[in-house]
């Protein structure tokens, strides 16, 4: 791979691992008066924040880079890591560059976290979006549009621009491009997994959490061109689809470990909110309505978005079949209620379809992986050795 791309990925790693959010601070210096709005996974309408003149910042916990000192006392046992590390970041000042925080109802822990933030950070704008869970109702689109308008009004109060259709259309276009580039990278990896290391793709993608979308688009197109030209020799590997990491993210070393143990990742649900829509959002006459409708009718399946018209377990099997995967790897954060519940139906469906799977539990704050290594290697061995 050309050194330029190596450097770019290295740069991404620095950005991702920088707890101080240097990139966000820099953006704020360059855009005086504009706010940075953090959003907790999984999805947030970044277009809307962008159109208000603000920087949407994706929060994905602090990994093992922060010792839990205060947050454990607030959230106690049986709660996933990301909830605690995010609160710890807040309590120890790492979220100071952010002027606001957005949450949505992905699970009960994250929802309560939103309000714990509200109490502990009264000087910050902390909001909770209700994203509809009943897309089949005729009233959902109207409701979601109203919810977005409520958000827009709040952002305006924070000093944002009044939401204008033109600005929103431009933002939608920028994010459509972002998703298209990511989609190309994902498609490239699915067809030529030896050419794209998943850990690299992950870093490239996650750096976007802290960058203006325009910059990110530029980086992604550079990387895409480079990677497409790359020459690499395919290895004897197991082709897998990763499921279950839509919110708390597995440590980078764990992603590498999975690859090193002999897996080609054809698809994953890391940072799923960045690739939320399956098609471009149509930026027509009613861009806000289009954004809402895309959420309801043209988005990926997810354990935190319920749509009883399309069952998630069927969709997972379809995906694995479509991509020609040998197996599904569930990477689930410890105590992640939605992922674990979905696993039951996924498992049933995969077994019926005779697609092997492995479940690994991780914590973003873990830094030794002996046991996980054994598990992945055994799994690979069980598929490779006859």
């Amino acid at each position: 791979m050309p050194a330029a791309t190596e450097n770019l990925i290295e740069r991404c790693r620095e950005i991702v691992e920088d707890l101080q959010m240097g990139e966000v601070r820099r953006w704020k210096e360059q855009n005086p008066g504009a706010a940075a709005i953090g959003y907790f996974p999984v999805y947030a309408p970044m277009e809307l924040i962008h159109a208000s003149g603000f920087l949407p910042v994706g929060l994905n916990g602090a990994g093992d880079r922060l010792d839990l000192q205060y947050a454990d006392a607030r959230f106690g046992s049986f709660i996933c890591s990301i909830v605690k590390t995010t609160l710890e970041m807040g309590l120890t000042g790492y979220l100071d560059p952010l002027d606001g925080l957005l949450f949505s109802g992905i699970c009960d822990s994250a929802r309560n976290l939103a309000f714990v933030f509200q109490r502990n950070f009264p000087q910050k704008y902390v909001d909770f979006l209700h994203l509809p869970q009943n897309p089949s109702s005729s009233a959902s689109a109207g409701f979601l549009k109203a919810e977005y308008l409520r958000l827009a009004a709040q952002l305006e109060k924070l000093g944002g621009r009044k939401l204008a259709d033109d600005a929103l259309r431009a933002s939608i276009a920028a994010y459509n491009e972002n998703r298209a580039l990511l989609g190309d990278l994902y498609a490239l990896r699915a067809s030529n997994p030896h050419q794209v290391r998943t850990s690299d793709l992950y870093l490239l993608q996650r750096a976007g959490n802290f960058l203006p979308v325009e910059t990110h688009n530029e980086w992604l197109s550079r990387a895409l061109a480079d990677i497409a030209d790359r020459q690499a020799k395919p290895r004897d590997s197991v082709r897998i689809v990763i499921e279950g990491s839509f919110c708390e993210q597995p440590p980078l070393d764990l992603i590498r470990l999975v690859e090193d143990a002999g897996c080609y990742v054809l698809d994953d649900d890391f940072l799923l909110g960045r690739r939320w829509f399956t098609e471009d959002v149509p930026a027509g006459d009613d861009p806000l309505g289009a954004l809402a409708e895309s959420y309801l009718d043209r988005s990926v399946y997810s354990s935190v978005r319920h749509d009883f018209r399309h069952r998630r377990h069927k969709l997972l099997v379809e995906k694995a079949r479509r991509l020609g995967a040998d197996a599904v790897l569930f990477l689930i954060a410890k105590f992640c209620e939605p992922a674990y519940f979905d696993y039951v139906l996924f498992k049933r469906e995969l077994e019926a379809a005779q697609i092997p799977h492995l479940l690994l539990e991780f914590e973003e704050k873990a830094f030794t992986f002996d046991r996980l290594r054994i598990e992945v290697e055994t799994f690979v061995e069980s598929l490779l050795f006859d």
Partner: protein
Amino acid sequence: MRLAAGVDVGSTQTKAVIVGDNGGLRMLGRALVDTGANVQRAAENGFLAACQQAGVSPQDVGYVVGTGYGRYKITFGNSQMTEISCHARGAHHLFPSTRTVIDMGGQDSKAISVGAEGEVLDFVMNDKCAAGTGRFLANAAEVLGIGLDEIGPLSLAARHPVKITTVCTVFVESDILSYLAQGKKPEDVLAGVHLAIARRTISLARRVPIEQAIVMTGGVSRNVGMVRALEQVLGTKLEVGSDAHFAGAIGAALFAIEKMGESFESGIWRPADAAPAG
């Protein structure tokens, strides 16, 4: 002279103290025995030893309060109190400005938030797992072949503490051994062990408000390495008195006096007047 006793039957060690109001409240005797297998016997032995040291007859002791995990096994006791109440009370007596107590014993650790009168405001305890307790330290000492009272001072000599990843008391053995095999110095390994426990303890303790003065009680308070490690993690100083190991028993004895219906003036007896350790 009126006499009262507090007996703290811990999982590892049993502590007993005799107090009396002989021209002011005094600690007349105290004793420390290993709890061992026979909890009831240990309680008795501790109590008798304390009586003997105080030079009083057990029959003359008017009221005995038992505490600690074996408190219900004390046949001669008049009543029981939880060790939480007793440590708070004892610590408050030793340091009247106590607001937080960190008690680390053989099998559990707890943090107690204490009010101005020595009353418990809030507390937390670890559960179900011996990771990060006195046992953890005792095991580490054993693996290294160093006396329990030496590991603390030795750990202070560390310059590059190792990172201990295991919290399990049993498995820490192999961590320690592999560090030694890698040529790490015992003091660095020990410092790592102490720090690991300190982090765990403080993250537990943060569930209650931690306010000055912070008093450490329980057997592990005798380990200067642990005290320093806790101070380092907490970023503030801990109060540790020479009677800290006896805080639970002292608290129990104070409750005993109260239960006797005796009016007493808290604060007359001070650690300085204490009888020598038994």
